[in-house]
């Protein structure tokens, strides 16, 4: 009975989970762009700009995204108008901004380090971080984004049955375990290919150098 019920929940969870993926992708994109920009500022010749970049980075690194989530949820109004035009800010955008902050810190660190070292580009650190943010995206349920965690909570609350707690959360846990297993396997294969190409290229370069 329970198993059939859980299976029937699959499409709903799938839909909710797609929201997690959307939030994570947007937060990654936003964070990488801001990260690139702050890295650029960081390498500026002017001390003042460097200082600004450093203090931004410090804030992005030190404020937990969880706290930022609340900050944005409570400070920014959900709707406001300018000259009789109505704007709506969906909660999901707030989640993207909040989760974009740690990505910015991470991206900045990566870019600054990458400048000094000549290494093959590897997807692994990025994909690991993607999974970290994907998992963190579940916290946006707290400010009312209807993602997988919120859906699980709603399913239990609507059923009014405390016996549903363990099976439903276990389903969510399993979901994430399988998701990260699939991801890490894919990434491993992909990185092997990338590393091979880099090595081949390096070998070629070395051979050409020998000829000269």
């Amino acid at each position, binding site marked *: 009975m329970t198993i059939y019920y859980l299976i029937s929940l699959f499409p709903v969870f799938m839909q909710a989970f797609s929201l997690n993926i959307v939030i994570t992708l947007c937060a990654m994109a936003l964070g990488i762009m801001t990260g690139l920009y702050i890295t650029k500022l960081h390498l500026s010749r002017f001390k003042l700009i460097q200082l600004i970049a450093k203090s931004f980075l410090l804030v992005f690194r030190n404020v937990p995204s969880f*706290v930022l989530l609340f900050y944005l949820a409570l400070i920014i109004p959900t709707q406001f*108008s300018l000259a009789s035009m109505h704007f709506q800010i969906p909660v999901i955008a707030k989640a993207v901004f909040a989760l974009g902050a740690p990505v910015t810190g991470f991206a900045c660190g990566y870019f600054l380090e990458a400048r000094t070292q000549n290494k093959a580009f590897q997807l692994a650190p990025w994909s690991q971080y993607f999974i970290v943010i994907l998992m*963190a995206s579940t*916290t946006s349920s707290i400010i009312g984004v209807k993602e997988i*965690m919120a859906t699980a909570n709603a399913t239990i609350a*609507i059923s*009014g049955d405390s016996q549903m707690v363990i099976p439903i959360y276990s389903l969510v*846990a399993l979901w*994430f375990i399988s998701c990260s297993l699939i991801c890490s396997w894919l990434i491993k294969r992909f990185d092997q290919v990338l590393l091979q190409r880099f090595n081949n290229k390096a070998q070629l370069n070395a051979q050409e150098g020998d000829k000269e």
Partner: protein
Amino acid sequence: MMLRTLINLFLFALLFAISGLSSQLYADTLSQIQDREVIRIGVKVDYPPWGMLSPEGDIVGFEPDLAALVAKELGVKAKLRSVTSGNRFQLLEEGEVDMLIATVGDTQQRRERVSMITPHYYRSGVTALTAKSSNIKNWSDLSGEKVCLYGGSYFNKTLIQDYQIEPLILFNTRDAQLALLTKKCVAWAYDNSAIYHLLKSDSWKDYQAELPIIYPILWSLVVNKDLDSLSLKRKLESITVKWQRDATLYKYATKWLLPDRAYLADRTKLWNQKTDRGDYLCRFNADYHLPEACDQYPKDKPVENNYWWPFDQHDTNWLILAFTQTLLFTLAVVILTLVFAYIFTLFSLLSNPYIRKTINSIINVQRSVPPIVLLYLLYFGLFSYHYSHPLMLDLLSGGAVTTALIVLSLYTAAGISSLLEDAIASQNKRRQLSTLNTAFLEGKHGIIANLINLVKASAMASALSVPNAILVTTSLVASQGHTLFLMTLLMLFYFFEVMLFSKTIEYLFRLIPQAKRPQLEN
């Protein structure tokens, strides 16, 4: 020449249009309504049965019915427009609607913005949802008991102070419901109309809301505050007085099966009482005020001091306590993580690769589950059965603090141990304690990064109502306002907390290698 005439004509037309527009802007709202023979009324569609959509898509409910009555009294047609709690005042101010009948509670703060019609037409308040099997009959029975509260409720502080309850504050109403279902608290105190919704569903049939309603909020029809709306306001006042006297409100409340109808019945009795001279006891005086006994105006807020710190002693102490608790919790979770990480890494020293790998993958599985899922699973799930299993360890008795400590430290410890395992594996040496130490020092940066992430993640414990800075700050925002001030304070607190912990951790790690270096060089 031709052009100039044209421009003049255009300017003239413009002037004419503007003057026409402004004369329309300053027209009396009531006569405008009567001219166009339509009154536009903002009602809710997300609040059944007060205001909702019928299966055919029409707006129906208690408030739409009242809207139709208003239109009938004015001899015009009603045009209903759906509004939300977020946009209702704005739509009114912009003239998109002429008035609101949209579950608006009358408060002094809102009176600064819009005009409230008295007498009020309904009231809501706070009640508590309890299990039918429990023996709670009165608010005083809850003294010293755990009561679930939604962090966004305005009455939390007053309730805690008035009835000495032990609060369990949760971030959303869903979690509050979960906590009640899993017996983390004996009651959930919340808005009576929302609880009334909930009780209509079959799944809550074992629960009831029998406690008397406290902290009432009176509901008002609303019009704009400007002078143009004054005549409409007077008209609506006389309509609501009529509704009180002829029991219209009671009749419609009965039609829609609203809760707390006895209140409306009492009101009808009161409004029909007469003085010795044969006048109604309840009626407007020359200043358009009602006698105190007939309708209460919202109480004025206590005078705000202009001092930079806007909170009283109770709130200040509450905040200081919460900040201290957050620091202590973080310290505890960091120490516990290091202990777990050390134990986990000891498994890496096992020489049998199969046993080692099995143990490592078990440790690592929980790393791919979001900590918040594990928090909920353990707190609301596994640990909630301690009532039926008295033999379960006392430590695991469903305490939110214990659950959060365990989940967060295991999660980070697994991260650290997998880092160390990689370092050991890359060394290709015999697995012994000294390799572990070398790996520990080499993986220093990774370990520090993991610990700093843990310090940041420990904020998450507040989801389980672990006494924490976020919970207390958001509760204060809900009851006192000062949103920007409080949230910025919270942000600064976490910023400096993370700084403090990361500097301390880095400092401590700098101490270790100096002690071990001679050993390594040998």
